[in-house]
Each structure stands twice: as structure tokens, then as C-alpha cells.
């Protein structure tokens, strides 16, 4: 308890001092832009969410701040203002995230707050963002209830999409393959029994039925399952040409490894979260080629290539090919909205975000009902890169079926 009290006492003293200084200063100083903009966030640096957050999220927060500062700062009312940041570890616990966000608003008095990792965490802290009136630019928040959420909290912006969007886009791809006689109408579907995996599976079941596919297998497995061979073995016993796993990163790797070891070679092999990580290619090398997954990017985009290069310089590793760039693009959109408004006026920034179109590294970003329009829903590893194959749009690559058989490692 003591450090907190001490902290707040210091804060009080600081506030008194600052108020005094302000009173003494001429009135004109107060109307000017602040000397620095404080950006703050709570995110999982430890605990089960730390892995995903480290691959996809906070490196982009830091990269964005660096890029803005390297360009001289955020342009506010004709002046350039540098960014500084505060970061807390929420230890993958939502109570911690809530506490840290309260602290960011009330004690650190941040001007811009960025969301934590994952759907559950984002939901937990959304009321705090809303109370503070701050725009909440999410990149790891994904749910079928997004429409309800953004109706309730109009300051929440979503760079991802509903699980349904991704499942339907996948089934669209499968329908085209079936029409071309490349696959049969049977799917072996598995999912991790956790948040996004469950939602994708629900949506996938409906989309498959609507698309005239039948599920030869429909199984869930707990997160952190250490041997996925029995699941691959069951899929192997079906006659399905398509294997779909609505998986999380460790089991995406585990399923691929088990499929390779057991020489399970369906014509279509799809896995969800984690497929787009650079570590996937590093681990499976040329065996990654032909694997379908969620997300993707447009390799023709020079802006995206430059972004990858900057990310490598700053963090000594590549960004993933989906979520990472969306975080960065979301922050770019927010930056442009702030600069357009010209002051740290949150309601005006929120209004600008909901109506404007913003050029970013992933192309123009526009929000319809607070959810980003468009994007990549299905990607595929092709010649060492995870490229977007669906939906059809400029830059989309043709999907390659069947996936080549696994080679021995």
C-alpha cells in the first residue's frame, strides 16, 4: 500500500506545482499545445498472453511512437509535439489490466491510451476507455458481438472483423475449389476450446453447412494440449480433402508438426492464429508452402515492405503477416485523425475516426460502424511469404491447391 500512497502524494505535489506554474504563466501559454503527448498502455508482458502480445502488439506501439518522433512528432495545431510512453504489465489478468488502465487515466493522465492484448482483456477495459472518452483502437479484439460492442461504446474501433467474416471467406475459397473439381465436399474441422477458436468453429459450422459442405469430423481440444497426434490421426481416418483447424499459435505449430510426422496430406490444410507468424516459416521452412491460414498481406505494397524493414531494424525480427500491421495501421489512422482535429479533443477525434478515410501501410482504412472495412481474411504461404488470397481484391494471389505433400525434415 505504501508505495501507492507515496506515489499519489508525489502526484498531488506535482499537480499543485504545475497548477501554480500555470497560474503564474501568461494566459497565452495555456491555450497552446502541450509540450509532450503521453501515450500509455497496459499489456501482457508475462503470463499466457505474453507470447501473442510480444509477436503482434506492443512492438508496433513502440515502432509507431518511434516513427512519429523520428518525423519530429505529432502535428497538433501547427506545432509538432513529441510522444512519450508509459507501459504496465497486466500479467495476463483482466483485473490487473483494469487497474493499470484506471491508473493510466487517473494518475499518469495519459493523452492517448492503447488497448491490451486479446478479446477478453479488451472487453474488460473498454468501459474505462469509454468513461475517459478516449478512442480505443483495437487490433486483437475479435468477436461476433462486435456490432453490439461498438453500439454500446462508440469510441471502440476494430481493425479485425467478426469470426463469421473469416469463416465465410474461407468457405468461399473452398467452394471455388470444389467447383473446379479440386476437392470433395467433406471437411475435417477441429478447434481450440478457447475464445476465438470457439467463435470461429461456430461460424465455420454454419458457413460450411450453408456452402453445402459436410463435416466428416468436428472436434475441440483444450489449449496447451501437448500432443495433437490423436486429432490428426482421426482426421486421417476420414475421407475429407480439407483439414480446417481454428487454432491458437502453439497448437497451430503442434498440428502442423503432427500432420507432417504422420504424413497426413489433405489437399487443403488450414490453420488459424499463428500460421501468419514468421516463426511458422522458420520452423517448417519449405513445408509451410501451400498452408492456408487467417490473415495475409499484399506483397505488392511498397509501404508494407518499408514497414517490415523498419520493424526489423527496431525489433531485430519481422512482424507477423496479419495482426501486427493492423495495429500499426490503426495507430496511423488515429494519428491522422488527431492531426486533422488539431488538438487533443477526444470526442472530435472519435468523430473524425468514424467518418474519415486514412491512408496507411495496409492501404486506405475506413471504418463503417466502427469496424474496418475490407482487409485480408484468408492467406497462404507461397514461396516463403504469407500472402493474401481472399477476398478478391487488388494484390490478391491465386490460391494454390492441392498443398504439396510434406517433405521429410
Amino acid at each position, binding site marked *: 500500500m505504501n508505495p501507492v500512497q507515496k506515489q499519489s502524494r508525489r502526484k498531488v505535489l506535482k499537480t499543485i506545482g504545475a497548477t501554480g506554474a500555470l497560474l503564474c504563466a501568461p494566459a497565452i501559454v495555456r491555450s497552446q499545445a502541450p509540450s509532450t503527448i503521453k501515450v500509455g498502455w497496459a499489456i*501482457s*508482458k*508475462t*503470463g*499466457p498472453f*505474453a*507470447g501473442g*502480445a*510480444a*509477436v503482434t502488439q506492443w512492438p508496433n506501439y513502440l515502432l509507431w511512437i518511434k516513427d512519429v518522433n523520428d518525423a519530429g512528432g505529432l502535428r497538433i495545431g501547427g506545432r509538432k509535439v513529441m510522444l512519450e510512453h508509459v507501459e504496465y504489465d497486466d500479467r495476463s489478468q483482466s483485473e490487473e489490466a483494469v487497474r493499470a488502465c484506471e491508473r493510466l487515466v487517473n494518475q499518469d493522465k495519459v493523452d492517448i491510451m492503447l488497448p491490451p492484448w486479446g478479446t477478453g482483456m479488451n472487453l474488460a477495459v473498454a468501459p474505462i476507455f469509454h468513461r475517459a472518452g478516449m478512442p480505443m483502437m483495437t487490433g486483437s479484439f475479435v468477436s461476433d458481438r462486435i456490432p453490439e460492442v461498438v453500439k454500446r461504446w462508440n469510441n471502440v474501433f476494430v481493425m479485425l472483423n467478426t469470426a463469421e467474416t473469416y469463416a465465410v471467406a474461407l468457405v468461399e475459397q473452398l467452394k471455388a475449389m470444389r467447383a473446379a473439381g479440386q476437392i470433395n465436399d467433406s471437411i475435417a474441422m*477441429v478447434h481450440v*476450446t478457447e475464445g476465438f477458436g470457439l467463435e470461429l468453429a461456430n461460424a465455420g459450422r454454419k458457413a460450411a453447412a450453408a456452402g453445402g459442405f459436410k463435416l466428416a469430423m468436428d*472436434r*475441440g*481440444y*483444450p489449449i*496447451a*494440449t*501437448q*500432443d495433437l*497426434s*490423436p*486429432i490428426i*490421426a*482421426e482426421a486421417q*481416418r476420414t475421407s475429407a480433402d480439407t483439414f480446417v483447424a481454428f487454432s491458437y*499459435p*502453439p497448437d497451430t*505449430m*503442434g498440428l502442423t*508438426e503432427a500432420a*507432417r*510426422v*504422420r*504424413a497426413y496430406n489433405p489437399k487443403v490444410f488450414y490453420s488459424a492464429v*499463428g500460421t501468419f*507468424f514468421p*516463426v511458422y516459416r*522458420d*520452423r*517448417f521452412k519449405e513445408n509451410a508452402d501451400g498452408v492456408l491460414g487467417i490473415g495475409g498481406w499484399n506483397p505488392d505494397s511498397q509501404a508494407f515492405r518499408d514497414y517490415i524493414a523498419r520493424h526489423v531494424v527496431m525489433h531485430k*525480427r519481422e512482424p507477423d503477416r496479419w495482426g501486427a500491421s493492423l495495429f500499426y495501421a490503426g495507430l496511423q489512422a488515429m494519428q491522422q485523425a488527431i492531426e486533422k482535429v488539431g488538438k487533443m479533443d477526444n470526442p472530435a477525434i472519435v468523430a473524425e475516426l468514424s467518418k474519415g478515410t486514412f491512408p496507411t501501410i495496409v492501404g486506405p482504412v475506413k471504418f463503417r460502424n466502427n469496424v474496418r472495412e475490407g482487409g485480408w481474411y484468408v492467406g497462404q504461404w507461397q514461396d516463403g511469404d504469407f500472402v493474401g488470397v481472399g477476398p478478391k481484391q487488388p494484390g490478391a494471389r491465386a490460391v494454390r491447391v492441392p498443398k504439396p505433400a510434406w517433405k*521429410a*525434415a
Partner: protein
Amino acid sequence: MLQFFDALITGITLGGMYALIALGLNLQYGVARILNLSYGEMLIGGALLAWALFTAHGVSPLVGSLAILPLAALVGLATYRLALMPLVRRSPTREALEVDSLLASFGLLFVMQGIMLAAVGGGYLSYGYLSTSVDVFGTLIGANRLLALAIALTAGLLLYAGLTRTRLGTAVRALAVDPVSAQLVAVDVNRLAGWAFALGAVLVALAGVLISMFLTFSVTMGVIFTMKALIIIIMGGVGNLLGGIVAALMLGLVESFVATYVDPSLTLASNYALFLVVLLIRPTGLFGKASR
């Protein structure tokens, strides 16, 4: 029939991996009486070193372990001498030491995790080694998983033989049963406990090295392994290596058969159900004190 063998062989290899994870904790908790909550972090430490040697320098994890295992012994011994010895000295009873060591190793957990996070960050780490498929009675299994099984069984049986057939082993067992009385028959309790703790560290590092060949891990994943190891040694009977291996194989088989014949989403539940049933029937574990 093929399906049955499939499940059987997968279950045995998985059980072998679990046995490997639990061996070291059995020595640390069963013999040295340190309930080491940073156990999983030590495992990740071994995995991390193997990963770093392989990805940065192309060193085979098996060759790498020649350096990693002695290092683990040193770290284990130093940890015992510096961090845990004061607790051992001042604890009046075994129970008091368990509580004290639990708290101390909880702190150690964060220190180790923090160091590893600072070194490589929290992302997922993965590489493949010895991942060629081996045909075992018609079931394809990764060679690395088979190696883990073989090493678990060998190490477990060697240790068991050492404990039951040698003079030093008898002293160690005396220490595990009653550290106070052991002193009466000239057993240097503190030194022996330190060695047992260090040997436990070597085994857990070995488990980490082997597991890193086929599992994707991150430096924050240690707690999963600590939990698994705890369940296994409590189920097998604390301090009984053979019991630990039997318990691990049971867990692996149940997981594999439930996944194959019932539903993969029930594997976790079935593992805990088995754990509960065993404890209800034999509160001290399968091979607990009563049968020693």
C-alpha cells in the same frame, strides 16, 4: 485395431514425455523437500539454451546438452546453497520447509522468467530436430518424441536402481523418509539434499532440451510444466521415481485414449479425474509412503 495401437503408442510416448518432465521435481520435492515452483522455468531455461545454440550456431541439442547439463547442475547447486539453505536451516519441520521453499521458489520463478524475457522476449520459439517419422507397429511417431520416451525410461530406471541398490541411494532414501533420523546414522543431510536438488535441476534441464525439439514454447510457459510435474509426482507418490513413471504413463494413455475414443476436448478433464480417483483411493499416491 490399428486405431487402438495408434492410441496406445501415442499414449506411451506422451506418457514418456510427462515422466521426463516429472523426474527432476521428484528429486527436488521428494528428496530435497523443496517444493520448487520455479521448476517449469528451469525446464524452459534448458529448452531456451538448446534453442539458442541450435538456431544461432547450428549446435545439435544433444551436443548442446553436454554444456547445458553441467551448467544446470551448477545453477541448481548454487540455488540450493545460496537461496534455499537458509530456509532449510531455520525450518523446524518438514511442513515449515515446504511452505518456506514454496514462497522462495515463487520469487525465484519471477526472477528466472524476468531474465529470460529480457534475453529473448515473450514470443513463441520453435525449431525442429530429429523430427523424422519413425514407423512403430504401423503408427508414425516423431523420432524426437521416441528419444524423449527412451531417455525418460532409462533415466527413471537408472535412478530407481541407484536409489534402491546403492549405499548412497539408501542414504538418499533415508533423507527422504526422515531427515532428522538420517543424521543419526551419519548421513550428511544438507550436502546430500543439495546434490539431490542439483541432480533434479540437471534432469529438468534435460527434459527442457528434449521437449524443445518438438514443442513450441515461450519463456512464460513454465507454469504449465510445473503443474503437470506436480500432478504426476503427487499421483505417483512423492519421492517415488517408479511411481512417477507409472503415473505419467497412465496420464499419457488416458489422454490419448480419451482423445481417440471419446472426445479430445475432454482430455484435460479426464486427466484431472484420474488424479482425483487415485488420490481418493490412495491419498499418498500410487506408490506413496505406505507401500515403501
